[in-house]
């Protein structure tokens, strides 16, 4: 046992080490930003990857860090998309950045309200409740045809230039740069969040809620907070979709979207923030390639990928991401123990 003052110092150091930027991470973002200039003709799919990555990041926050399985994360995504599209269509807020924030806040509000529904219950109950909320919103958007355009989608949305300067062009140049910057900023926030004591307490809640509450962590409070934040992220991802395509349809709420999202996160691996981003890259290119190759039967191969991933084992499939996991200092209590042991022996 370490004396308390040293223990505090060790813990602080360890937290700081966790939060430190690693070369590989820096490299990742340099490549992402370099793509603005390097691959101008791939900006359309890259834009999709950016918002899908953000959406998966949001799911990672609740699944990877809080252990809540959701089949209805599209609810927040869709709410964000419709909010942004409606704001633009009726010219309530013309500045896309501002509309993005409002969409995020709207999704957060919904996230806060619905978070109380997922606090308790088994995996199955949570699954059904999240799915139910998404279906309910879809039906609502369908019923409010006068506002949302119903099953035809919201037509005639035109998005004003970002900050009054950058128009959304057909080639997706502005769209990509804009989405990437938003993704980066939100990623920084998420990174800060999970590397804070709050993030650690979340992991302890995921690991063992009972023990977590025994050491004085408010389990419900933590879950509500992270669910709300994640909902906001998903809302902003949806708003990005709406703004870059100037369109929103009922599909934003669809079950397929939530299911695909799980696949995205699983390909990349959950619980270290980069999983969603890497998964989004792989998933989009795979889907693009397969659907161009066999436009009729590509879902079969996507399904096969899912089955194989589970059969082989998620850990083994995503083991190639280990370097990423390490640099993102995926929390591992054994690693902490080793660290404590090492630093305490140094001190001696």
């Amino acid at each position: 046992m370490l004396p308390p003052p040293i223990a505090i110092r060790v813990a602080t150091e360890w937290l700081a080490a966790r939060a430190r930027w690693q070369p590989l991470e820096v490299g990742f973002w340099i490549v992402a930003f370099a793509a603005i200039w390097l691959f101008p003709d791939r900006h359309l799919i890259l834009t999709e990857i950016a918002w899908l990555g953000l959406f998966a990041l949001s799911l990672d926050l609740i699944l990877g860090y809080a252990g809540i399985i959701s089949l209805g994360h599209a609810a927040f995504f869709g709410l964000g998309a419709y909010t942004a599209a409606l704001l633009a269509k009726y010219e309530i807020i013309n500045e896309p950045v501002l509309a993005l924030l409002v969409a995020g806040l709207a999704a957060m509000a919904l996230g806060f309200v619905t978070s109380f529904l997922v606090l308790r219950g088994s995996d199955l109950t949570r699954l059904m409740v999240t799915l139910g909320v998404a279906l309910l919103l879809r039906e609502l958007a369908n019923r409010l045809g006068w506002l949302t355009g119903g099953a035809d989608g919201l037509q005639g949305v035109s998005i004003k230039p970002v900050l009054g300067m950058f128009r959304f062009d057909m080639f997706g140049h502005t769209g990509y740069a804009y989405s990437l910057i938003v993704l980066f900023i939100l990623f920084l926030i998420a990174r800060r969040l999970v590397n804070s004591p709050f993030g650690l307490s979340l992991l302890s809640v995921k690991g063992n809620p009972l023990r977590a509450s025994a050491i004085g962590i408010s389990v419900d409070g933590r879950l509500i907070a992270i669910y709300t934040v994640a909902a906001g992220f998903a809302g902003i991802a949806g708003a990005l979709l709406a703004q870059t395509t100037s369109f929103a349809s009922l599909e934003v709420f669809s079950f397929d979207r939530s299911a695909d999202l799980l696949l995205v996160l699983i390909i990349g691996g959950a619980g270290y923030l980069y999983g969603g981003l890497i998964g989004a890259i792989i998933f989009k290119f795979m889907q693009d390639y397969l659907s161009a190759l066999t436009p009729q039967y590509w879902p079969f191969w996507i399904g096969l990928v899912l089955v194989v991933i589970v059969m082989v084992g998620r850990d083994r499939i995503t083991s190639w991401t280990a370097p990423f996991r390490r640099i993102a200092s995926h929390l591992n209590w054994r690693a902490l123990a080793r660290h404590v042991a090492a630093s305490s022996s140094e001190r001696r």
Partner: protein
Amino acid sequence: MLTILFDGIAYGMLLFVLASGLAVTLGLMNFINLAHGSFAMAGGYVTVILVNRLGVPFFASLPIAFLASAVIGFVFERALYVHVYKKPHLDQVLFSIGLVFMSVAAADYVMGSGQIFVQIPKFLQGQFEIYGIGIGRYRLLIIVICGLLTVALQFILANTRFGSRLRAAVDDSRVARGLGINVNWVFALTFAFGSGLAGLGGALGAEILGLDPTFPLKFMIYFLIVVTVGGTSSITGPFLASLLLGIGDVAGKYYVPTLGSFVIYTIMIVVLIWRPQGLFSRAASR
């Protein structure tokens, strides 16, 4: 008015047969199997091939559909599912969604993407009236078959040796093994039986629900509602839940067509919040 009630009951009964297999795998074996609808679809397509292409009588094709789906279920259970029982729920969800995607594309490849109907015999078509209540012949048949099945199911689970073995295997599989029950075998048979029921439901339901490759996705939510709302501790729970869902759905569409499926989803969420173990579950008191 009463016609609507009758239609609702028939619809609910059909949902029950379709979902009862899921109640068994999900409730008793605690396995989240979203691919349940795929087995139902298989049964439906088997009937279509038998009746429409090979000219097998409709009634003879029903047991074949049951057997075909049961065999498919058995093979899948032994080959794939058995490896996923012990995995976390997340894996089960991913795995079964993958199966759904595959089955949708495969059905499209083999059977085409259009909606297909079974050619049911003449005497089952149409409607007759008793005291002003319009009774669809086919719906009446559904009610009869499903009613019999429900009784049989309840009897098997509660009163037969196999039923008690199954319950033992679920409650404590280690002790059950110790008592000489072949747990793997019990699970495999149960799974096959559940898939067979789904196949039978698919065969019966093709006429009313329509059969196309997106069947497993379209009805997945209904099956899940039946099982979660009904609770998974008995057969009676899902049965009552199916009836409620069927009548509620049909009556809702008749009386308030503008609300659509709104009512169903709201009720589901409320019930799940209020009694997470299901509406008719004794375990809710735990």
